[in-house]
């Protein structure tokens, strides 16, 4: 049999053409029909996102904005007011207590909201990082209050700080000898002690 010395090249070219055509075909199938090549996203995704179940409710929902049972959220309103007074006023309750959907669904309480007393919770936002501005409060053993009380990073933050209004002493809690004594002017109405 006498074959052309280039026949293998021709076959290779055919193979490469098949690969390219295959790629184009798979690409055609893989690109979603609602793909918008101007803005580079799938237009249908907007509708799909709307259908996703809601997880977060925002701080209003903690105040019972959509609750029928206003009695049971009374305590939350106090907390909301406390948070609103202090430096944590910009925070979302759900940062520390988990998403609303894990707590309430269909206007019914399904589980208690999470309460996390670990230091990690606070250090998520208050650990020292260079990217945080100098004037943002970051945990520092040398800071006045901490230095005075020998606070280490492992010491429970909640022993002293109220999570809802961290400038205030946590209510109740152990009375270690070094804890500052509250004077009458410093004691606020809700039993928390002004530091």
């Amino acid at each position, binding site marked *: 049999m006498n074959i052309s*010395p280039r026949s293998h090249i021709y*076959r290779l070219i055919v193979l490469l053409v098949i690969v390219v055509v295959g790629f184009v075909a798979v690409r055609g199938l*893989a690109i979603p029909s609602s793909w918008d090549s101007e803005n*580079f996203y799938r237009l249908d995704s907007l509708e799909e996102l709307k259908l996703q179940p809601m997880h977060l409710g925002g701080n209003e929902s903690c105040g019972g904005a959509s609750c029928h049972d206003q009695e049971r959220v009374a305590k939350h309103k106090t907390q909301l007011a406390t948070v609103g007074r202090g430096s944590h006023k910009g925070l979302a309750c759900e940062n*520390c207590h*988990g*998403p609303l959907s894990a707590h309430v669904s269909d206007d019914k309480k399904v589980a208690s909201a999470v309460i996390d007393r670990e230091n990690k919770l606070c250090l998520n936002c208050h650990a020292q990082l260079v*990217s945080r501005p100098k004037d943002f409060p970051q945990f520092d053993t040398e800071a006045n209050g901490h230095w005075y009380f020998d606070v280490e990073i492992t010491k429970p933050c909640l022993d002293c700080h109220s999570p809802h209004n961290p400038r205030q002493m946590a209510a109740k809690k152990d009375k270690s000898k070094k804890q500052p004594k509250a004077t009458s002017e410093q004691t606020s109405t809700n039993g928390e002690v002004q530091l």
Partner: protein
Amino acid sequence: MLPNESLLNYYFPNEAEVHWSLMIVIYPYITGLVAGAFVVSSLYHVFQIKAFENISRFALVAAFCFGLFAAVPLLMHLGQPFRAFNIFFTPHTTSAMSVFGFVYSSYMILLMVELWLVYREHFIQKAKETKGMAGWVWKSLTLGVTEYTPEAARVDHKLTTFLAALGIPWACFLHGYVGFIFGSVKANAWWATPLQPIIFLMSAIVSGIAMLMLMYAFIRWRTKKPYDFPMIQKLMVFLWGFFIIDFFLEALEIIYVAYEHGHHWSVIGPLLSGPLYGTFLIVQLLVLSVIPFLILGYITIFKPWGRLLLYLANLASLMLVLQVLFMRFNVVVGGQLISKSDRGFTEFHWEFFAREGVLPAIIILSAPFVAFYVISRFVPILGDAPEAKQ
């Protein structure tokens, strides 16, 4: 608390983690080995450097093996590896990475075609000898053309030379591109320089040549075959040449920024005297550069022979392979140590077992060698004697 430890209403850059981790360190490293090994094979095919005749095929196979795994670190790094194909299907022209996908895959195709031409004679011979399933595999590799005529060999030779010639700019493009990806990040003082692609390219060639030397010496030692000393000597001369360009470009870049004392220096100065002092200045620029530079200079000028040449060449190659690995680390991780707020430096935390830890990095880095071993079971890679003509 919230899914993925996310936070609401809180927006300072969170730099507790360096996001481009070890995987992004070894990705340009492996890509560099591809480009470097390919250049060696082209030195013979295109530039007719006869000394490399015996290793040109070996260099090609090695380049292919590294190429197979060049994208694996990226897949490991992606949180959603199954979406990797999206950059091929809907590439955006403003994304450097999506164009890289095409550069890389076209380069791999070029490499495979060249390898196929080089090994066609072997495939045909095997297809004739082997029966059964294996025979069919060999046959499919020949694409059904089971005659190897002298005319066809001439055609192959021409095409191989053409592909090797095309491959050089393409390999430069491939690796220059990796440098481009970093060099074009204008917000990062440590990366943003138009020299970055050239520096990456030169260090790629250095690491590729050095790695070939180590592999060659290892294979020869394991198989108890004689060493091709003229080739080693020549290879080291080239290694020296490329390394000089690489090293001085890199040093020039630093000296330039230091002398200019512009706004970049206010970040780079503290970076070099702080977090990168050990890994960049001491290890990369001093120990792993000056010593191999002197060794290679000695080899080039005084032309030692025999055992001495072998030991010196291996020592220098080993140091340069590490030098380039350190360079990748210092660029990729070093750049990210600069806080995005420019207020100072963050820290890199080493991990071992994690998805992007040291262990996966070691596994991925050794995969090309395993692939090489497997391939070498099926096709001849290095000739038997140094003089053997294939």
